[in-house]
Structure formats: structure tokens, C-alpha cells
């Protein structure tokens, strides 16, 4: 931290009130304004659109302080053990948002400021609302002062293009492609660094920018887009910074346009690490852009996610969201979809399916700590169905607990965080005259639950069914003793279960049914469950990098997994269990109901580079994608792995500084992985190569 940053932080912390009675909206507005007026502005040589500021990270510290101040209110000690054991987890989430980008681009910061006045004038005398308008107006005035300051700084340094653009944005909406792109980055700064609300998508850039593109001099566009994408990437957003291409409009027309191709081409050229692409595929998406994106994946750009537009829309409509909002959805973060006007709080609640099975087997007692964290039972399960019902009962309990913990946080958002800059982009916030977080003013103020370790739990259930109830080679008590001992002295049995037993991901209905029933039960419980904000919960099935932590706290499981090993990733098969190859793997995943997981359900398909080589390789990849989506898949991501390259990169990281793999929800530099993670990737590529 520089001296100036330190000073900013000290002053910000002094502005806070730790009494527990803090007026968070007011004090966050004060903080926003203080930072906007006092941050230091520099103009990096390399930037074309935007200056740099030094207030990064300050907002995170503010949130942390608020969390500690509110802890006794938002955390219930009765749930501490279950949370610590990662049977469930419930927390706040201010991190997965999309601005209403149409309005940001349409109006610019200046126009957003003017719009507040109109809502204020219409709102009558409601003091609560009037106060909200007053507060956010103060912030937007400060934002305009900040832009003017940035413009002046740019001008002082002889950066005419940047200065002219910023000057224009202090008094009007963007009018050129340059200014539109500048607005995207500018808004990103405002929300992320000043408002402290993580922005996790740039929106559907091809649709948003099309009107500006049409008016632009085509000769200068490619370079401008490239500069833009690289500048975005240099921001080094926490996690990744996605943008989307495609989707459909209300009438069902596909939205891929000329600019979509150009943006994809730019993306392929840009060599970025942080920027990620969601391709929203409808029935009418031109095949060539899909192939083009798959070709990019094949060449090592693995940060492209392929989503089924129709299924996303359906899943949002099933939540009761209006068609026009569902169609105009955004994908925040990795794969979480939210309707227009929806705050998804997509990462608030998590639960561990593998641990829930542990609860069923051990009467709610944590294998690792001996603490009672789940529901007790008598341990008698005459049939497999009895055990399966008990598992579902424990799943339900864990979800309930996670939701309870999230509810505690969410009903107290007023103690934690306000987002004045972000709120002004939502018409519902303006209409309701309240902050998106403090006042839950979004049209859909929703929350989410993610269930983790689906394949681990499913494989374990399948193994118990076979060992105890079908082959009867062990009693349940004997199996429990083995798990308690972490398979010690039972290596032959463990490997037999691991290598020879049926698994989720082999396209075998009998096993896949267990996964399907689990997901159906989760969906029935979660989707539509009311939250404390006037909204509902939504289900997701992604595990991202949580799977390591969740696995480390889960005892040995009946699928042959040792205590502490990672649980399975996202909706995919346990690593190594996709013994029948990629198509079988996809058949298993597509068997799950893809319309009930609006919060995201992704499979990571590992393919060896030799399996996707040449024209026919691309054809096969494309076919696998379309078939998966046709059969009911929600979203897919490909890892094209080449064992040799990964091995070399492990031994000699300096030689491969830019090699990326997709670890979980986002792509990471291979060189940044732990040795354990690197080894897992190499093993995965070998197993993909084996079936190639």
C-alpha cells in the first residue's frame, strides 16, 4: 500500500461507525464520495481509455470491518460447527452482479445522474425514498467530478483522445464507439473500486455496442477493440471478468451479429488471462461462430463457456420471472444466470452432498471431529431405499441450515453494504426508492444455493448399493468401520470400488438415476423457497475451487475416496470415472434436469488434444456440444489437454508463463497452481488421452 492509499484507508475507517447502529447507506455514500474526490489518479502510458486509481482493496477492508461489527447478529453460534465442517455454509454475497448495462451505455454516467432526478420528482414525499435519491445523487455528482478530474489529468499528460472522451462523458451519454468502450471501463471502476460491489460481467457486448459499431469507421475498429480488451484484462479483476455474446431477443431472434464475430476474433487475438467469454447459444445461432469459438478452445484458449440460451431462459421462467426479463438474462461470474433486474447473490449458500451422505451413515456425527452436525438416526436401513431416503433427509437438513445462515446475513444487509452507484442502474431500485442491498430493491432480490460433490455422493451411494444391498459382500456396519478407518488395510477393496464399480458419468441410467433424484429433490426444495429479502432461492450445482476445501473436511467415502481428498467437480464425473469416454459422460450429465439449475450447472469435459485435431476433430467437438445441449445440458466447458505440454510446464514453469487451464469456475495460469493441482491436471490429461 502506498502512503496515499494508507491515508485513504485510515480516513475511510474513521468515517465508519462501529456501534452496530451505523446508517450504512449514508456512510457508504460518504465513503464513495470521499474516495471519488480524493483518490490519486495516474495515467498509465499503456492505457487508451481510462486512468488508474489507487483505492483498490479499500472497499474490501470496509466490508470486512462491517462483518466483524455485525458478526454477533449475522452468525448464529449454534451453526458454527456445521459451517466449519462445510456440511453447509451460508454467508453474504455482494460479489456476483451485473449492472443494467443497457442503461449504463445508453445514458452514460451523466444520464444515470439525470435519471435519478426524474424518479425523485415522481416519487412524492416518501422520506425514505427521498433520502435514497438524495444520497445517490450526491454520489453521482462526485462521480462526475471524478470523471472531470480524470479528464484533466489525462489532458495534462497530453492524452487528448482519453481526455476528450472523459470530458464528453461529464456532460452527456457516449456518442461514439470509443466513448461507449470508455464508459464500460469507467463504470467498471466506479462500481468495483468506489462502490465496492464486485461486477462480474461486462454484459452482452455485441448487442450493447452494435449501434456504436454501425456508426464507427470500420478501419479503426479492430485495433480499438483489441486495445479495449487488453485494457480490461490489465485491470486484473478478482476472479475473472466475463462478457457475453449472442442470446436471443423477446421474439426469439438470435442476436449474433457482425460485431459478435469481430469481438470473438479480437478475443482470440488479445491473449488475455482474465477476460472470459460466455457464448449464449440458441437454436438459431450460426454454426460458424460456435465452431470458431471451439477452435479457439482447441488452440488453448479455454476460457470460453458454452451455454444453452433456451434452457437458461426456461430455468428463469420456471422461477416465475417474466419472459422479457428471463430472455434478457446476464451471466455473472462463472455460470450463474440472472434475469434482467435480478440480484442473484449466487454464492451465498453452499452444501456438501458427500458430507450429507456421511451424516446419513454416521447419524449426523462428523467423521473428522466427532461433533454432531447433522441429524441423528438409528442407523438401521433394511433396504437401499431406506438409506437413500435418509441421505435425502440429511441433504434437506443441510440445505435448510445453509439457508438459515444465509438468511441471517441477508436480512441484515442493511448492516453490511450499500451500493449507490450500482443501484442507480436498476430501474427497480429507482422505482422502489431504495438501495439494492440495504433495501432489497431489485425486481428479483434473489438468493442461491449450490450443492457440491454430486458425483462423489452418487458414486458412493452406488457403491453402497452394490456392496451392501446387492452383492451383500459387506454389512453396512462393516463398511462404516472401513470408512471410519479411512480404508486402512482395505486397499484392494478401495481400488476395486474405485476402478470397477459403476459410476456416474458412464452413461449408466441406474447410477445416473441416483444423481437425478438428488438434483430433483434439491430443486424442489430450493427453487422458489422464499428468502428474507422478498425474493426466492435458486439452485446451482457448481463447486468451483470450493471442492478442495469441502473435500478436505469430508471423511472417507464409499466410492473409494480417501478422507480429505477433493470431492467431484461441478456436475461432472469423479475424475477418472468417465470410463466410457466423453459421449457417455455427457449423456450422464444431460440426464439431469437442466431447467432447474438457474444458478449454474456446468460440466468440464476433458479432451485430449489428439481427439480434437484436424477438421474432423472440430466437427466432433461441435457435435458433442450441440448434442449435449439438445439432450438437456445447461452449460459446458472444454479442457483440451496435452499431457506432454502440461508435464513440461510443471517441470519448467518459466518456459510456459501463459499456459492456462480451467481449474474450476475460471481459468488460471498453470504456473499458479499448487503441485497437487498440477498433478491432478496431468493425470486428467493422461486419462483423456487414454480414451482418445
Amino acid at each position, binding site marked *: 500500500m502506498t502512503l496515499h492509499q494508507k491515508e485513504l484507508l485510515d480516513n475511510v475507517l474513521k468515517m465508519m461507525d462501529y456501534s452496530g447502529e451505523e446508517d450504512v447507506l449514508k456512510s457508504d455514500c460518504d465513503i464513495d464520495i470521499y474516495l471519488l474526490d480524493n483518490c490519486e489518479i495516474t495515467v498509465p502510458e499503456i492505457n487508451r481509455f481510462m486512468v488508474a486509481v489507487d483505492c483498490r482493496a479499500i472497499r474490501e477492508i470496509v466490508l470486512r470491518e462491517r462483518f466483524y461489527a455485525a458478526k454477533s447478529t449475522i452468525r448464529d453460534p449454534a451453526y458454527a460447527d456445521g459451517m466449519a465442517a462445510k456440511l453447509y455454509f451460508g454467508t453474504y454475497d455482494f460479489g456476483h452482479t451485473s449492472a443494467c448495462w443497457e442503461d449504463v451505455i445508453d445514458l452514460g454516467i451523466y444520464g444515470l445522474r439525470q435519471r435519478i432526478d426524474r424518479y425523485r420528482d415522481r416519487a412524492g414525499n416518501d422520506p425514505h425514498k427521498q433520502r435514497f435519491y438524495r444520497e445517490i445523487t450526491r454520489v453521482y455528482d462526485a462521480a462526475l467530478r471524478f470523471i472531470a478530474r480524470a479528464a484533466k489529468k489525462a489532458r495534462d499528460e497530453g492524452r487528448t483522445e482519453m481526455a476528450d472522451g472523459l470530458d464528453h462523458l461529464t456532460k452527456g451519454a457516449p456518442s461514439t464507439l470509443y466513448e461507449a468502450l470508455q464508459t464500460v471501463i469507467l463504470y467498471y471502476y466506479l462500481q468495483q473500486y468506489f462502490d465496492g460491489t464486485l461486477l462480474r460481467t461486462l454484459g452482452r457486448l455485441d448487442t450493447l455496442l452494435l449501434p456504436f459499431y454501425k456508426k464507427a469507421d470500420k478501419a479503426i475498429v479492430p485495433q480499438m477493440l483489441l486495445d479495449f480488451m487488453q485494457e480490461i484484462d490489465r485491470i486484473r479483476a478478482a476472479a475473472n471478468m466475463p462478457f457475453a455474446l449472442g442470446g436471443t431477443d423477446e421474439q426469439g431472434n438470435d442476436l449474433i451479429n457482425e460485431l459478435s464475430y469481430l469481438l470473438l476474433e479480437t478475443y482470440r487475438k488479445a491473449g488475455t488471462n482474465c477476460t472470459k467469454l460466455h457464448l449464449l447459444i440458441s437454436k438459431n445461432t450460426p454454426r460458424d461462430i460456435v465452431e470458431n469459438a471451439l477452435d479457439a478452445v482447441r488452440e488453448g484458449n479455454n476460457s470460453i463457456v458454452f451455454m444453452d440460451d433456451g434452457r437458461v431462459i426456461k430455468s428463469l421462467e420456471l422461477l416465475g420471472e417474466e419472459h422479457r426479463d428471463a430472455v434478457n438474462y446476464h451471466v455473472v461470474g462463472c455460470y450463474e444466470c440472472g434475469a434482467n433486474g435480478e440480484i442473484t447473490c449466487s454464492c451465498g449458500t453452499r452444501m456438501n452432498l458427500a458430507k450429507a451422505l456421511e451424516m446419513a451413515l454416521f447419524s449426523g456425527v462428523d467423521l473428522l471431529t466427532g461433533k454432531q452436525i447433522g441429524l441423528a438416526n438409528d442407523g438401521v436401513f433394511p433396504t437401499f431405499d431406506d438409506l437413500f431416503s435418509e441421505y435425502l433427509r440429511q441433504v434437506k437438513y443441510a440445505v435448510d441450515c445453509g439457508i438459515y445462515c444465509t438468511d441471517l446475513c441477508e436480512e441484515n444487509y442493511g448492516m453490511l453494504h450499500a451500493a449507490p452507484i450500482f443501484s442507480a442502474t436498476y430501474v427497480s431500485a429507482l422505482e422502489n426508492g431504495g438501495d439494492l442491498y440495504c433495501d432489497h430493491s431489485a425486481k428479483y432480490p434473489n438468493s442461491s444455493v449450490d450443492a457440491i460433490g454430486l458425483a462423489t455422493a452418487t458414486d458412493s451411494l452406488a457403491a453402497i448399493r452394490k456392496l451392501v444391498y446387492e452383492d451383500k459382500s459387506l454389512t453396512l456396519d462393516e463398511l462404516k468401520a472401513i470408512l471410519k478407518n479411512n480404508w486402512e488395510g482395505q*486397499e*484392494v*477393496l*478401495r*481400488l*476395486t470400488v*474405485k*476402478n*470397477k464399480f459403476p459410476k456416474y458419468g458412464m*452413461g449408466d441410467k441406474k447410477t445416473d438415476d441416483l444423481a437425478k433424484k438428488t438434483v430433483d429433490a434439491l430443486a424442489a426444495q430450493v427453487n422458489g423457497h422464499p428468502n428474507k429479502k422478498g425474493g426466492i432461492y435458486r439452485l446451482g450445482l457448481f463447486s468451483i475451487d470450493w471442492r478442495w476445501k469441502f473435500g478436505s473436511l469430508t471423511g472417507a467415502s464409499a466410492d473409494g475416496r480417501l478422507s480429505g481428498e477433493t470431492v467431484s467437480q461441478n456436475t461432472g464425473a469423479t475424475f477418472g470415472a468417465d470410463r*466410457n*469416454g*466423453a*459421449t*457417455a459422460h455427457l*449423456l450422464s450429465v444431460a440426464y439431469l434436469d437442466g431447467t432447474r439449475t438457474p444458478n449454474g450447472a456446468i460440466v468440464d469435459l476433458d479432451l485430449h488434444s489428439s*481427439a*480434437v*485435431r*484436424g*477438421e*474432423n*476433430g472440430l*466437427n*466432433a467437438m*461441435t*457435435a*458433442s456440444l*450441440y*448434442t449435449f445441449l*439438445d*439432450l438437456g445440458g445447461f452449460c459446458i466447458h472444454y479442457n483440451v489437454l496435452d499431457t506432454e505440454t502440461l508435464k513440461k510446464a510443471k517441470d519448467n514453469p518459466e518456459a510456459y508463463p501463459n499456459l492456462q487451464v480451467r481449474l474450476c469456475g475460471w481459468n488460471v495460469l498453470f504456473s499458479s497452481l499448487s503441485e497437487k493441482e498440477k498433478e491432478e491436471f496431468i493425470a486428467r490429461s493422461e486419462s483423456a488421452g487414454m*480414451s482418445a
Partner: protein
Amino acid sequence: MKGLVSGIKRMEIHDGDGLRTTVFLKGCPLKCIWCHNPESISFSVQTAYFKEKCLHCGTCGDKHTAETALSCPVNAIVTYGTEYEAYELVETVMQDEAFFRAGNGGVTLSGGECLAQPDFAVELARLFHEKRISVYIDTCGFVPRETLKRILPYTDKFLYDVKAVDPAVHRACTGQDNAIIIDNLRFLSKMGAAIEIRIPLVVGYNDMEIPAIADLLKDIPCISKVKVLKYHNFAASRYEALGMENTLPPALTTSEDVQKAVDILASRGLNAVNGVTSD
């Protein structure tokens, strides 16, 4: 109708056009020294023992049989040869029907020599054909004319191996004469069958045959493509595991050698394709 299958490989892109499933039928009348599927030469069930995988857990009592293969926890014992009813195999393969349709693919019967189990192969081809699934037959051509006649109506394309023209070279490399093979190729061509030729290039063994192969092929109509495949010796551990004498030549063939062969074939007007770069 039952047959013996040594393996099934899904989402295959190297055995013909589009996204395919390759079914390997067990047993082959040739015995190529470079055979990359040694487990598919014999017509009977075989058990292989991969000692580098073995844990020495004692479960098998050091007996490596089809029985003990079932209980080896790490699949160090592998049985090659599963008996399938034709309809049963078709059902298994049809799980991927949607993928075949989207990927303009289908099924490839390979081996071994799939036509060395003629009744089974014909029945499979017929059943797939009935379901409008594209059927490719990967054959070494060393089969009775009668079998070709029977399979022809259900075959969308033959992937036809040509290894050498000089009978002495052919005998040295495969153990058999090639007169029947060349004859059968001419026959299929005359029948108007779609044919893709595949030449495994093994430097030091059949690379000098390329000009003669080119001359042979250039006068045979109906050949849509000639693909040159680069020899590798990845199968070495399987020879050992099967207890077979490892006849594999050293892997000297380079991508440049393949391209040279392609150039020679192309210079005779053939649609020659480099198997290294094309897939």
C-alpha cells in the same frame, strides 16, 4: 448371432468421417509385424497382465485369467474378447446415436479384421444400416470375396488397408500374400463402393513401396482418399502383457516421411492425405 469383440471406442475421429464409434472385432488373418492392436489378432479370448500396474496384492493368486481379471482391483489383468449378441452390441453403440447424427458420423467396424467374423459383421452392418446409421468397414482386404459381396449392401465406405505391392514385402510384413487383397480392392472398385485407402507407413519396411502403391491405386476408380498413417510403437506394453513376441519395428517414421509419401501419392493424381496433420 454372437461375435467376439476386443473393444469399443466412442467419440472416435480417426476411423473415417465424422464422429464415430469404432467396434473392434477380434481375430485377424494377417499378422503384421507392426500391428498396433495385438490383442485383436487372435480369434479367442485372451488375458493380458500389465505388470507395471500390478500391486502384488495377491487377490489373483498370481493366476492371470479371465476369472481373476474380474477381481483385479487395478485392472492389471485385462481380458480381451467379450462375447456380444449382435442386437446387444447395436444397442450399446446406439446410445450415441444423437452424437452420430450431429457429427455426421456413425459406426466403424474394425479389428483385427472385422470380416473374419463374417456372419457377425454382416449382421451388425445390416442392423445399423436398418437404423440409418452410417457403416464403415475397416478391412485389410484379406477376406473371401463372398464376404465382401455380403457386406457391400450395408456399407457406406470401406477403409481399405494397402501395405505393399511387392508380394515378397507383403509376406515379410504380414505373413501373407497380397494377391487376394489387390483383387478384392479391384472388385470393390468395380462394384462402385466408396473406398478410402489407408497406408501405415513403417520406415525401413514398406516406405520403398510407396511409388508402386501409387501406381497401383492411380488406375483404380472409386478411391476418394488415400491416407498415410504414421507408425508408432505405443502397443509395445500390450505385446508384453499378452505374452506375445514383440515384433514391433523401431519407431523411426517421422512426420516428414509421411509428408514425402503423401507427395509421391499426390504426384500420381491421388487425393493423398497426411494422417499426422489431418487428424
